[in-house]
């Protein structure tokens, strides 16, 4: 399985430029990166899939893909953005795939195991995020989960900052409508 080419150079996380160590090779540098990023990637994947097991798989696959690109290219300019882009794409694939499987399984009375609960997590909020169109959900997740500025979200999602602003604007309004519907206007 391969992934497309590295994210082109732009403004995201100028501090996160990662290159192969001169003497130690790529692995130690990547290991440190992976150790630092793993939980955030699982969290991002979970906000998009709603399944801890799937999120762990997606994050793992994303780190694997990142490593392949890292090793191949002697480092990545923006590995954080790269890994999140892979998570976003693969999470979308997995959600679609899981839905199809669930339909087939459900019809034959063999539903998959229930998802593992995260006891204090605001499931209603994240369920509403997952109900948004893919790109809106991804932008919203990165906005709240990692508090990333628009430019970085644009880098990760591979679109213009103005597009991200539209996604965030529409996504936040849709979330507000879903979670706290505006009271109906009474008679004048």
């Amino acid at each position, binding site marked *: *399985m391969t992934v*497309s080419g590295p994210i082109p150079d732009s403004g995201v996380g100028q501090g996160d430029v990662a290159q192969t160590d001169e003497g130690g090779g790529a*692995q130690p540098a*990547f*290991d440190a990166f*992976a*150790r630092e990023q*793993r*939980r955030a990637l*699982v*969290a991002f994947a*979970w906000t998009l899939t*709603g*399944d*801890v*097991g799937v999120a*762990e*798989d997606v*994050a*793992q696959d994303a*780190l*694997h893909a990142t490593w*392949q690109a890292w090793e191949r290219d002697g480092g990545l300019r923006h590995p954080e953005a790269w890994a999140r882009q892979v998570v976003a794409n693969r999470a979308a694939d997995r959600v*679609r*795939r*899981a839905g*199809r499987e*669930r*339909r*087939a*399984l*459900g*019809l*034959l*009375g*063999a539903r*998959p*195991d229930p998802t*593992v*609960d*995260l*006891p*204090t*997590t*605001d499931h209603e*909020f*994240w*369920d509403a995020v*997952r*109900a948004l169109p893919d790109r809106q959900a991804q932008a919203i997740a990165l906005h*709240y*989960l990692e*508090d990333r500025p628009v430019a970085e979200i644009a880098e990760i999602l591979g679109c213009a900052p103005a597009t991200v602003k539209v996604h965030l604007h529409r996504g*936040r*309004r849709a*979330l*507000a409508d879903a*979670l*706290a519907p*505006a009271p109906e206007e009474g008679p004048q």
Partner: protein
Amino acid sequence: MTATDDRLDALDDRGRAAARTLLSDLARRASAAPVAPATESSGQPEPWVIQLGPPAGGRRPVRRWWLAAAVVTLLMAVAGAVAVVIADDGRSPVSSSGPLHYLLPSWLPAGLQPVRATGIPDPASAGFTADVAVYGDPDRDDPWSATLAVVHLIAPEALLGDAPSGGEEVTVAGHDARLSNQSEGLGSSGPTWEVAWQVDDGRLIVSGPHRADVLAAAEAATTEPAIAGSGLPDGYQELARGPFTDSLLFTSLFEGFGGDAADTVGDDSGLVVTYGDPADRDTVRTAVVVAQRPGPASAVDLLRIWVPDAEATSVHGRPAVIGRTRELAGSAGENGVVAVQWAEPDGQLVTVVGFGVAEDVVLQVAEGMRPATAGEVAALREAHAVPAPRELGAVPDGQVAVATGDSRTGQWRILADARRHDNIGALTIERVWGAIGSTSSTTGDRVEPPLDLGADYSDGTAVVWGVLWVDAASVTAEAPGVEPVPLAIHEVTGWDHPVVAGAFPDDHFRGASDVVVVARDADGREVARNTTLLADG
């Protein structure tokens, strides 16, 4: 400040709080790693770089697309029963309004030629039928964006399983029913509500994106299956109708249509021909599969159930649907899968699926389908009833094949990257089978040390593999009353820990509970145990 501003401010506060609690929960899960067996001491491994925490429930969520393969297996088992029925009484295998006029490609991409030609099993002959009707608003830009669907299943009790459970108890038209929320619904890509209940001959299921709409539709649902107008939102009309069992065909097609039960079913049950490059040993394969079987024109749009990213097109001047998915990227590469479906005037439903092939190429193949000449299909089936066994290509540079084996129609192997022991991507399983099926995945989540294993089910063969973190002389998969399966221990040059790998028929532990993998020392004492990998047999 406006009311809208207030709501958005409140939303932002809630979103940030939701992020904090999520990260906190995940951190708590990660710190609640299971304690290794008491025998583990100095053998405790160094932390992996990619050390994902175990499920709080103590059971590892499976990679779910293997479960879809299990459904296909079940369907094929039904097909096998069909074949037996046919052989016993000599009846015509499948009811049809008349002989099918098969089509064959007049043009294919360079290098592709027939590698498999077989019939399509008809589960109805074994008493399993499932029909679906889908409703939506045809005046919307995308009528399939918010569909309601009703599915009627008729099947033997053993196949249907237990009555619907889980979710919320509701009453639908006087029936006890279960209402649940799913992350994706029939023909849509968003969350959906689904209500299911038992009827005299099977089960009815109604699904849709809104709870209230689903419950209203369920009250008006019949086993036709249909939803009466009184149960539908304004403007909703029937969009598609047809056999839902036929939709299961797509899962099979995406797997490479490897079921051998289909070989024994007669011509009239349909035809699937896979075109590939026989010399291609890569796990990423370019292929075209053409499936033909009896089906109504109203079923053409049901393709969208399995490929929601789809739109209308035409083939041979007939209404058609084309969709694409990146599922099974291991088989189809980055180009993914493209499927086009239409109905011929004689009542034949035709589906052309391209793996790793561009959309315009798939459409070109579809448009070029021409009537088969006399005897052409029979000759094709005779020559390609069984695909040539698939073989893996050369081992990639920098890796070594630690273990290899055969499955029914293919091969598996475990590759180790000597440069990255104890790390993500250090171990990879590669498999090829059937005409186009393939898998490639890696270890790394280390759910239950010190026996952190993965299991891969394809082509009738289960492969168990992983890293052994303790000193052990033997490793076996075992369950009460079932013959144990020994797993081999392989030393890897440059690695600190050996690799465990073994394979067995995927039904070896079927029906067994408490299936475990146990490592023992030279004196037969248990030194490690994995209780989650094969728990369900």
